[in-house]
């Protein structure tokens, strides 16, 4: 057996070993992460997802994260929701939100405002700007899907959302936005948002389910 064939076979075995759920492909590094997590967690108690039946996650020793640059956040949202970056959000229907709030979003503007480096810290308008972009983009995707595009929220076409519909939508949203399958507790919690008395209809639920995921720390930072 040639070295190439052996290598290929090993790769196939590795991918197969990583799958822990039918249907969508799981994140390839899950198995290795679990192993290293266990190995790095001698007490077995530091870090947890909080869901009792799910593997524990150890706390990062350095906890070094970065906020997505505004264009990166916009591009990720654009790809996840199948919208152009110029279709995500417009202030007053004219001014691209990402550009309008670029500095608050952690960007720079060396030509017009002599801001050569991102602000050292976000301000009060930073998470609000993210909220506005996500709310607008998610609303746009819901609107288009209800008009027939059916990319993310096809199940809402009749104005209702059964439990199965909600599960499918949530799974799809998490996969698209966070590029991983939804955890069971996420499926449950996001679907349950529809039962909140302040959520008037399936359309609003869909938009806000999308919003809640799109504005999580996991999607804003990396």
């Amino acid at each position, binding site marked *: 057996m040639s070295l190439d064939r052996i290598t290929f076979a090993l790769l196939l075995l590795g991918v197969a070993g990583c799958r822990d759920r039918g249907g969508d492909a799981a994140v390839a590094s899950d198995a290795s992460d679990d192993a290293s997590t266990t190995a790095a967690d001698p007490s077995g108690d530091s870090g947890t*997802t*909080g*869901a009792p039946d799910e593997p*524990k*996650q*150890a*706390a*990062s020793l350095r*906890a*070094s994260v970065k906020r997505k640059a505004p264009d990166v956040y916009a591009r990720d949202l654009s790809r996840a929701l199948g919208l152009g970056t110029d279709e995500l*959000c417009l*202030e*007053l*229907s*004219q*001014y691209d939100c990402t550009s*309008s*709030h670029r*500095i*608050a979003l952690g960007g720079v503007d060396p030509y*017009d*405002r*002599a*801001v*050569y480096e991102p*602000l050292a*810290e*976000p*301000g*009060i*308008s930073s*998470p*609000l*700007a993210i*909220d*506005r972009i996500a*709310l*607008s983009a*998610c*609303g*746009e995707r819901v*609107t288009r899907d209800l008009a027939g595009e059916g990319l993310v929220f096809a199940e809402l076409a009749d104005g209702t959302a059964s439990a199965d519909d909600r599960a499918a939508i949530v799974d799809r949203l998490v996969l698209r936005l966070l590029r991983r399958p939804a*955890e069971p507790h*996420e499926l449950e*919690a*996001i679907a349950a*948002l529809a039962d*909140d008395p*302040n*959520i008037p209809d399936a359309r*609003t639920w869909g*938009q*806000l389910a999308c*919003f*809640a*995921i799109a504005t*999580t*720390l996991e999607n*804003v*930072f990396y």
Partner: protein
Amino acid sequence: MQHTLTRRSVLAGLGALGAAASFGRPRTSRADVEGPRFLIVLGASGGASLLDAMLAIRESETSNPDTLNCFPDALVQDVEGSPFRAVDQSFDALGPIPMPFTATQSELVARHHANMMVATVTGTSVNHSVAQRRAVTGNEAWHGRTLQEVVAMQHGEGAILPNVHLVPGVGFAARGTDATLPDACFAEVVADPALWPLALDGVLGTKHPVEREALAAARALRNETLDPLSRFHAAFAASPKIQRWESLRGVSQQQVETARLINQLIVHADGPDHPLAAHGLQSSPDGQLVRDAFPMYATDPLHAQAALAFLLLKNRVSVTVTIGPDFSASIDGELVPGQGLPEGAVANPPIAFDFSHQSHRAAQAFMWERVLSVADGLIGLLQQTEWQNGESMWDRSMIYLATDFGRAKTRPAGATDFGSGHDLNNGIVVISPLVKGNTVLGGVDRDTGLTYGFDPVSGAADPGRTMTEEEIFAGLTQALGIDTGGELPNVPAMSA
């Protein structure tokens, strides 16, 4: 019955007189004002030379009329009843920019000389960013805190955004280095005064709005379930960045949205460029007031900043704001071959006061007129805004005209159009009822153009010394009623 005058009755009587005097008659000069004080840092980026303004020297007064940066006698105006001077000039061009303009400092200085103080200072850096930062930190005099941060700390209680910077990218808007200060002391940065207010609400004005309660439910889902139970959070919850973000999504965000700041701070009127009504928004109730005071708000960044700055102060959102021209050129006009630009087409030359490298006289004249005009507009608005009991907001406000440094004191022999470099020796201008008005602290040597200092306690001019950035910082904090715990030099000479 015979009345006996006691000390108690005399004091009670004097107190009654004082209280009666405060109703209907604003106080104009005192340093012991109770309650919050407001600071406007108006950053004169690039190096505003006092020799081209309040400390101007006449040719007849110096032994070096040909080579000193001094003016023909006729151009230097005395401001009646004050120690200040003003230089009124007209130019056919702003250096190499073919645009005529006229600068009349005398009018502005005369109007505000009673509350104007010039204090000399010699800085420590000829680097713009470094010098600008030192102008607001006193060269890290007090744990690296900026003047704006200490004002927010002392006077910002109850203000939702106590410290706001409307001119990013300059050292005057630098963040201090004292991490022990509460987060609220550090500035909120505004890059675009026209659209920034929209980012003070998560739903108003968006294309697909939802009911606020529905949004709250989604946020609660995110904040209380999705985030805290995620693997990502388990891994990175200890990150200061994560914690900061979570903090910003909490109480302060609720306060901002509850206060509906978005509807208080939009300067623009409803119109094609800003279709506010169509998006469920409205211009600030004081929108017309600030648009009238700063009519170039749509094209001149400094006017836009000043307009929003006043709204932030008036609506008690902030206690300190930082504005100023930056180094970007702002031009709105057609260049006609052979005729140049129409007057007023240039709102800001490239590199602001530092355009003095190209053409010192024109740049200084243009920029002094620019910053003093904006200060004048703000003072007018603050004077007509009541604080309480007949007292105006101006009575407890300070405009600190901070600048990087001065400019070279000499010029090529006989030249009227020349370039100038940076010079550490200069001074500051403060306009405020809280400082010793109608006063020049220190002086200027009319043969060298170098300024000299003053006794920090008595204020007596002292040609044998210059003032440090730390001393000026200390004097400003005293005038602003900041409790520094004795950690800074005592400079009561600057206070009213």
